């Protein structure tokens, strides 16, 4: 469970978050979507403590996160495709994270599940984007964290891995975890989302279940319903 109250963030003169209020509940997949530069990544990074908000409060599992760091042991984070120290191997990276986080990680099962065994000793620089994503998924899932954050997780993954990851996200949700997911892929949103949080210009433009969004716009597909919302927003701005 993540509670966000009155969150403001400016980068220079650009206001990215303008007084955000949001509850990300446990036991559901919370999809954060919105146009580019709507504040999705800033929101996620604020929860993780990578971005320090100007104003407002974030509580993770009931605890304020300001100037804290231990709370992150209860978050699994899968970033977008990233370039890590190129001379390390996935195995070393995984060991490093388990060195830092301690506890009892379940790495072997995840490595087998993603088919990463053959790549564990290769240097990261020789790995493809998709394989690096699998390494990222391993880092996010190797601990049994009550909160899981996925930032565009399926980009670069092959269809099999994509399916596996989506199944896994559903399983984790059914265990009662709080899942936070950003993606641009409509089919994924349609498949996975229990709650859609639509960000626009730094505020929550819409927070609904996919069914209600479709219903309110009188559309059968979520993609069309969202497009319709965006269109109407544009016309109201133009007017």
């Amino acid at each position, binding site marked *: 469970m993540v509670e966000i109250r009155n969150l403001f963030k400016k980068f220079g003169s650009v206001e990215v978050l303008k007084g955000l209020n949001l509850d990300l509940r446990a036991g559901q997949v919370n999809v954060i979507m919105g146009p580019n530069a709507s504040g999705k990544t800033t929101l996620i990074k604020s929860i993780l*403590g*990578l971005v320090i908000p100007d104003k407002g409060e974030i509580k993770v599992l009931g605890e304020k996160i300001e100037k804290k760091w231990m*709370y*992150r042991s209860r978050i699994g984070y899968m*970033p977008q495709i990233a370039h*890590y120290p190129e*001379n*390390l191997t996935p195995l070393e990276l995984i060991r490093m994270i388990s060195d*830092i986080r301690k506890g009892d990680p379940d790495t072997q099962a995840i490595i087998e599940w993603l088919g990463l065994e053959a790549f564990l000793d290769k240097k990261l620089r020789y790995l493809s984007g998709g394989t690096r994503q699998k390494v990222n998924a391993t880092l996010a899932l190797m601990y049994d964290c009550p909160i899981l954050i996925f930032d565009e997780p399926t980009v670069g993954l092959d269809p099999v891995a994509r399916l596996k990851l989506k199944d896994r996200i559903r399983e984790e949700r059914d265990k009662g975890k709080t899942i936070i997911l950003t993606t641009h892929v409509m089919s994924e949103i349609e498949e996975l989302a229990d709650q859609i949080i639509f960000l626009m210009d730094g505020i929550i433009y819409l927070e609904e279940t996919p069914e209600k969004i479709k219903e309110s716009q009188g559309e059968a597909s979520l993609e069309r319903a969202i497009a319709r919302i965006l269109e109407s927003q544009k016309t109201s701005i133009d007017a």
Partner: protein
Amino acid sequence: MLKILKYSFKDIFRSKWLLIYFGFFFVSTWFLLYFTNDPSKGLVSLLNIILMLIPLMAIVFSTIYFYNAREFTELLLAQPIRRHTIFTGQYLGLSLSMATSFFLGSGIPFLFFGVQNSDSSGSLINMLLMGVLLSFVFSALAFAISIYNENRIKGFGLAILVWLVMAIVYDGIFIYLMVRFSDYPLEKLAIALSLLNPIDLARINILLQLDISALMGYTGAIFNKFFGTAMGMAISVIAMLFWTIIPLFFYLRKAGRKDF
């Protein structure tokens, strides 16, 4: 922090440039000793390489490393670990690796040429320590500059500029001031100006230890006159420590509040 240090080390030690850096010092020291055939002459010849090259390489590698590690830093920041631990670990990982490759690269050839049996062993250790300190100073400067500049081209340019000013332009300004105001007593100004340049501090320290007055130059001579050899060397080391601590302080302060 030791964990961050351990993995930074692993990553850096496997990259080719550190090996090239080590190889460069090894080969050039070897050749200098081979041609002079006298450790004490070899030391003097090595002096300029140390004073020019270590600051340049430390500043270039540290800037590149800091910007390249950006996404990795983000991954670490998402883990249950203090910000200061991550950033101190990365700084130490890089500066210690650079200092070690220089130390071994230049130190090993001296052992082969019998420095341990000559009277130059003290001078060698002192010179190696100065090289190590210069690595720490310029690495700290580069990390501080990089963290304050989001734009890597600007950051890199600024870092090179700092090196250029301290290694080259500084001497020109110094001489200009000395000539322009030669009618006034300039000792204190000269000392103050030396304290503002870690490369000059290292040079003064090494030459005081080697006791070569012909190479000391104006500032070296003033240091010698004002403080004597031992005190002069101690002051230059302390000033260089400040040159490490102050940039590091600003680097860590910024790291504590920066958005990633």
